[in-house]
């Protein structure tokens, strides 16, 4: 829901970033207020996944210019774990498998790290099990997954559900979901989208990074942004996504070509 | 075990006698012969006390004629396919005499030979191995060929050993992006020893597919060193099949000089009666992003003995190496023995190295499944044995595949 007076949670100004020697983000601007759902769309290579990784602090990406503030705080100065603890969540496109590390233990340590930051008491194993069993319902997940290693041997759908389960436990204020719909069948997509809808409220915000309209059929965005060549090319309402679905991305190329060439970055 | 105590002495005597009986060093390899003879006189003969020879008794050699064999025979193989050059190696005459080489294939000049001969042996740290020095001491001819850049050739090498020692020396230089398919047949027609030393240098982007089919007999031995140096982006596939030898030992030695190359090794050895077959492979990655895919299989029946030792060295500079080694042995008799020892040495953190080994007899549930479909027990077990071998045989290049009749391999097993 759009409320012009809602507090700004995330503010991205002129963000430039590169991986190795390759400039990928070339001046991204985005403001996210509490209660909003944003969709960032674009082709492969447009920079949308990079944007999510930069916001979460992936070490392979270097920010070369720009500012990101999260509730007034300089987000880019923080280590990845601190960003998570203060309420920024990245749902991975490819959740990582960590053999040997129990999923339950992982969820508990992560949840307690977030709680400690919020000044809440640490949950012992029993209290945490109660909590996790309750949250499992959000994504209709089988408790058996708790006893397995983190994401190890999970199907694509199970991995994505595990991501949303983590989101349900960590209760972030800004959740960035990177291609959460990729690799999901219709039922899994419905469950995952249902989870995201349940968790969205007036105090938090969601940024969906996606290729396709089909996720947006299940989660209605307030804003749709189209990314190309490392920048947000156009912003509109949910109808922009429908427009894209109908006309494809070709017009993006035309629009890009019409613009003056993007100036080279000075690293 | 008692035999292995007497064998080194008998073998030392044989070596001495054999060295004394060699003709005066002569021909293009005279200097190499001279050095080899001096080295051999000094080297201790392999014995079970040396880790590399712990399980492999060379006692068989001591019973062989201490002479050089000459055996001009094409082993009764079907003729080569049209357009494919077949060279017969008899150990004495120049294999290229009177041969018209196809475009893209040329003999090495004397100065090139002087530069290249022994280079790959040294690079793969085996130039002073006993079997190599034995070859040095005896080999009178070397088949030294250059495959020109971007040419694509097929070549067959055939040898048929008689009584005595048949020394074979081959040197191949593959220029940038050259491709060579090499099918080699080593047969045995008498109580003798085939000593094969092959060196191959693969230039950038070159591709070598080498298949060796070695079919021997109970009173014959084969000692083969196959040394390959690979420049980046080159690809080497080496498939060796040995069956029927009283003693057969293959030592594939591979070095990826700057990494970024790909190596595929396939080995199959079949032992029966009192035969011994041994493969000691050694792969070293001297640069990043190298690849290895190795599968070694053995079938041991009768009182046969099968040995596999697979060394993989991944030093610090070989980051992002991806190496996989699998050794599988089918043990078919309770008087046969197998010894398997993978050796992985890794000093690089960002690598994928996996290896596995299995030893078993035919799976009873698989046998039962076939039988439950009406297939007789012996037929079912033949089918399973064939399937076991097929995994290696199918990687033999062209003609070599035809030489390697399955019935031949497992005639008695």
């Amino acid at each position, binding site marked *: 829901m759009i409320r012009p007076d809602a507090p700004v949670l995330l503010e991205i100004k002129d963000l430039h970033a590169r991986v190795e020697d390759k400039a990928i983000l070339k001046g991204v601007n985005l403001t996210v207020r509490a209660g909003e759902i944003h969709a960032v769309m674009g082709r492969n290579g447009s920079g949308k996944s990079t944007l999510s990784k930069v916001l979460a602090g992936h070490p392979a990406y270097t920010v070369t210019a720009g500012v990101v503030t999260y509730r007034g705080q300089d987000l880019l100065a923080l280590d990845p774990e601190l960003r998570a603890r203060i309420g920024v969540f990245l749902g991975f496109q490819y959740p990582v498998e960590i053999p040997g590390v129990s999923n339950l233990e992982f969820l508990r340590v992560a949840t307690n790290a977030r709680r400690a930051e919020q000044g809440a008491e640490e949950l012992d194993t029993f209290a945490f099990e109660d909590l996790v069993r309750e949250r499992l319902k959000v994504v209709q997940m089988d408790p058996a997954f708790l006893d397995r290693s983190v994401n190890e041997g999970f199907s694509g759908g199970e991995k994505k559900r595990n991501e949303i389960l983590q989101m349900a436990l960590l209760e972030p204020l800004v959740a960035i979901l990177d291609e959460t719909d990729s690799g999901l069948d219709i039922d899994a997509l419905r469950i995952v989208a249902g989870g995201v809808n349940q968790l969205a409220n007036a105090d938090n915000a969601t940024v969906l990074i996606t290729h396709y309209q089909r996720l947006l059929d299940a989660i209605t965005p307030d804003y749709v942004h189209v990314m190309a060549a490392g920048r947000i090319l156009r912003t509109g309402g949910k109808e922009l996504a429908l427009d894209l679905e109908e006309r494809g991305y070709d017009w993006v190329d035309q629009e890009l070509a019409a613009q003056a060439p993007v100036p080279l970055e000075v690293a | 075990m008692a035999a292995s105590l007497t064998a080194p002495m008998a073998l030392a005597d044989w070596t001495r006698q054999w060295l004394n009986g060699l003709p005066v060093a002569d021909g293009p390899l005279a200097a190499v012969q001279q050095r080899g003879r001096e080295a051999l006189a000094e080297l201790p003969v392999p014995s079970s006390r040396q880790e590399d020879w712990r399980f492999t008794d060379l006692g068989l050699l001591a019973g062989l004629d201490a002479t050089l064999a000459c055996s001009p025979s094409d082993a009764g193989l079907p003729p080569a396919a049209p357009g494919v050059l077949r060279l017969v190696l008899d150990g004495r005459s120049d294999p290229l005499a009177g041969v018209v080489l196809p475009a893209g294939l040329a003999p090495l000049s004397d100065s090139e030979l002087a530069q290249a001969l022994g280079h790959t042996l040294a690079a793969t740290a085996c130039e002073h191995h006993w079997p190599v020095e034995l070859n040095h001491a005896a080999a009178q001819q070397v088949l030294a060929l250059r495959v020109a850049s971007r040419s694509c050739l097929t070549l067959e090498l055939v040898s048929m050993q008689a009584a005595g020692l048949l020394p074979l020396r081959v040197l191949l230089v593959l220029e940038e992006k050259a491709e060579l398919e090499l099918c080699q047949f080593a047969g045995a027609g008498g109580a003798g020893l085939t000593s094969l030393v092959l060196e191959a240098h693969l230039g950038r982007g070159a591709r070598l597919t080498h298949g060796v089919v070695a079919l021997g007999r109970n009173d014959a031995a084969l000692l083969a060193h196959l040394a390959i140096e690979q420049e980046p982006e080159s690809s080497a596939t080496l498939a060796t099949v040995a069956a029927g030898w009283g003693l057969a030992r293959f030592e594939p030695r591979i070095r990826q000089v700057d990494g970024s190359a790909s190596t595929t090794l396939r080995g199959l050895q079949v032992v029966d009666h009192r035969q011994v077959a041994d493969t000691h492979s050694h792969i070293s990655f001297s640069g990043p992003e190298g690849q290895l895919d190795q599968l070694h299989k053995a079938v041991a029946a009768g009182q046969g003995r099968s040995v596999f030792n697979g060394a993989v060295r991944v030093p610090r500079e070989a980051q992002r190496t991806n190496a996989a080694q699998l050794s599988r042995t089918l043990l078919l008799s309770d008087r046969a023995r197998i010894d398997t*020892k993978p050796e992985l040495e890794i000093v690089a953190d960002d690598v*994928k190295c996996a290896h596995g080994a299995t030893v078993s007899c035919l799976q009873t549930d698989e046998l039962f499944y076939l039988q439950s479909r009406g297939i007789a027990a012996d037929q079912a077990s033949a089918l399973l044995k064939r399937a076991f071998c097929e995994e290696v045989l199918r990687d033999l290049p062209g003609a070599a595949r035809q030489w390697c009749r399955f019935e031949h391999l497992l005639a008695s097993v």
Partner: protein
Amino acid sequence: MSTAQAVGDLVSQPYKYGFVTDIETEKIAKGLSEDVVRLISSKKQEPPFLLEFRLRAYRQWLQMQEPDWATLGYPPIDYQDIIYYAAPKQQDKKTSLDEVDPKLLETFDKLGIPLSEQKRLSNVAVDAVFDSVSIATTYKEKLAEHGVIFCSISEAVKEYPPLIERYLGTVVPITDNYFAALNSAVFSDGSFVFIPKGVDCPMELSTYFRINSGDTGQFERTLIVAEEGASVSYLEGCTAPMFDTNQLHAAVVELVALDDASIKYSTVQNWYAGDENGVGGIYNFVTKRGQCRGDRSKISWTQVETGSAITWKYPSCVLQGAESVGEFYSVALTNHRQQADTGTKMIHVGPRTRSTIVSKGISAGRSANSYRGLVQMGPKAVGAKNYSQCDSMLIGDQAAANTYPYIRSQQPQAAVEHEASTCRISEDQLFYLQSRGIGFEEAVSMMVSGFCRDVFNQLPMEFAAEADKLLALKLEGSVG
């Protein structure tokens, strides 16, 4: 700082048990001779059969060559520069703990092994060995009620000579190897455990070895016998002070399991490993072997190896009895310039014997961690099975992980399966955990313990936490 570097720093924590206890010690002169062997035997007032045993071993040892085949490099050991007997000065072994020198009790307190009645661990009986002698054994009376004998081997020699004569040296013969022969000649103390027929030992048994003197070799000898249908779980722990010289530790452990008996032997080894330049530390040359003599017997080795400058150790099982079972679960962590050459031998003799090997090696710094194993299927091992899994985790690009799994088989109806892999802590895995709010150190520690989980699961409950703590200790500290 790169991830690899940061992870490397994490595993470089200082050694916590490096203090020396200031206590008056009785030592004999340096050096080894037949007279020294006789002197040790007489100090311990041993019966003639044992002196004979020692002398035979000593004479054998003189004929033997120090092994050099392990992938280890160390300067030659001067066997004449070692003290072969050192004991804290107290007359006889005290019958009551109250009479034990408080300094000794304090030492074990500091090591986390309280011995006094008020503080001692419930449900774990402890034999505490300080340098060459056992100073106290807890819960002896309670164990005696069940017919279980748990005491120092010196005491057993006096109290139960027939048992010692019957079993000592029958699993590891004195001629077995160089270090076993040396141990047989000069062994000082160690533990003896005897579980009679049908008894399930009511508590965990544990021996804690402490090397205190700087120039003393430690040669303990442990013998565990489980009679028909008996079972026991035993844990060994060890620490040593930090000296800049190397101390030799050459122990022998023999286990005997009769029909349907089961022995679980766990080791949490944390000797001083030397400093980051490889100065000082324990040379740990140990022979451990269990014999499943009886049908359906079981011997299980679990080890967590974190210390020692050099480790040379292959806890083995000889599976003689039909359907007997051998297990080996191992975690070996090496750092700095530590060298570990460890693994196991599973010798399948009897029919339908089974063995499992799970080895996890973690190499950091400039250390070398080698797994060396042998699985042998003898001609009579019909229907025998082995499964082995060897995984290595490499931290940094200067550490070495070597794997040498020998397989020998003479039995077609036996199946051997071996798998090995290498891995590292990947940047993506670290980032994933961090992006869920888990700090760097905890993330590394979680992944290392996850890597070791299959082995930790095998440790007795009381010690699983200890092992995890030990690894965490090696992993904790500030990240620069």
